[in-house]
């Protein structure tokens, strides 16, 4: 029997919601991190070039999408009945998104280029 609020709404654990919020931070951070790594290393750039016509953006974006969905899936299972503090998870996710924004800024990632 699920727990209910005074208004009769089913009270849901915050785990599955926290999972997708943190996964969005992880996916965004992955975009920034891979942007820096492709600028810093020709080997990483080559490995992420899934399509010659698109360049390393093809792998960078595909891997980041996989990171988002995989993190979401894993955390959703791990936290399906957990109740992590949603605001703290959101703050961590916001920090990851901010780092992702910084990492995708060309003058920043080009500073790591050889």
């Amino acid at each position: 029997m699920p727990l209910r609020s005074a208004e009769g709404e089913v009270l849901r654990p915050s785990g599955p919601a926290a999972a997708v919020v943190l996964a969005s931070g992880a996916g965004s951070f992955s975009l920034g991190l891979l942007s820096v790594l492709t600028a810093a290393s020709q080997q990483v750039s080559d490995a992420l070039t899934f399509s010659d016509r698109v360049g390393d953006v093809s792998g960078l974006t595909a891997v980041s999408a996989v990171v988002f969905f995989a993190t979401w899936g894993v955390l959703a299972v791990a936290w399906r009945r957990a109740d992590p503090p949603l605001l703290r998870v959101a703050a961590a996710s916001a920090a990851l998104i901010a780092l992702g924004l910084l990492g995708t800024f060309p003058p920043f990632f080009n500073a790591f280029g050889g």
Partner: protein
Amino acid sequence: MVIGGPFLLAFSGSLVLLLGLRAEHLTVEGIRGRVTQLRLGTTVMAVMAWAIVLIGTWVLLPWYGEDTPDSPRSILLSKSSTRQWHELADVWKTHVAYMAPILATAAAALVGYYGRALAHDRTARNLVLSLLLGAFAVSSFAALIGSLVTRAAPLR
């Protein structure tokens, strides 16, 4: 236009529905109807955001960056006055744009998970609002850069 239009409509509709989704202002039927529409709006927004970035990456980017003298990328790089349009603006847009579908998908997932409980849970509503605004901000930035780059070097 075909994809961007529904994306904008879905964002506007979702924003209005979310801001008005308060248990103290709505009947149970009202909450149910709004949540159904909000689910539709955020899902359409997420699907359109993925369609936009996938088409941009796999269809438009190869045309833009073709290794020919008349490709938009070559035109922009050929002059020092337009070089930054590629090296800063277009490259940043290409990299950052994927945050829009990620954030929009997270918003749609939260709406799907909380459902009618959103009307009672201010924290969850604010989270959905933040994700929607983030997705819209990133996609607006990318669209603005895209249109300015297209003006500087039209895609033929």
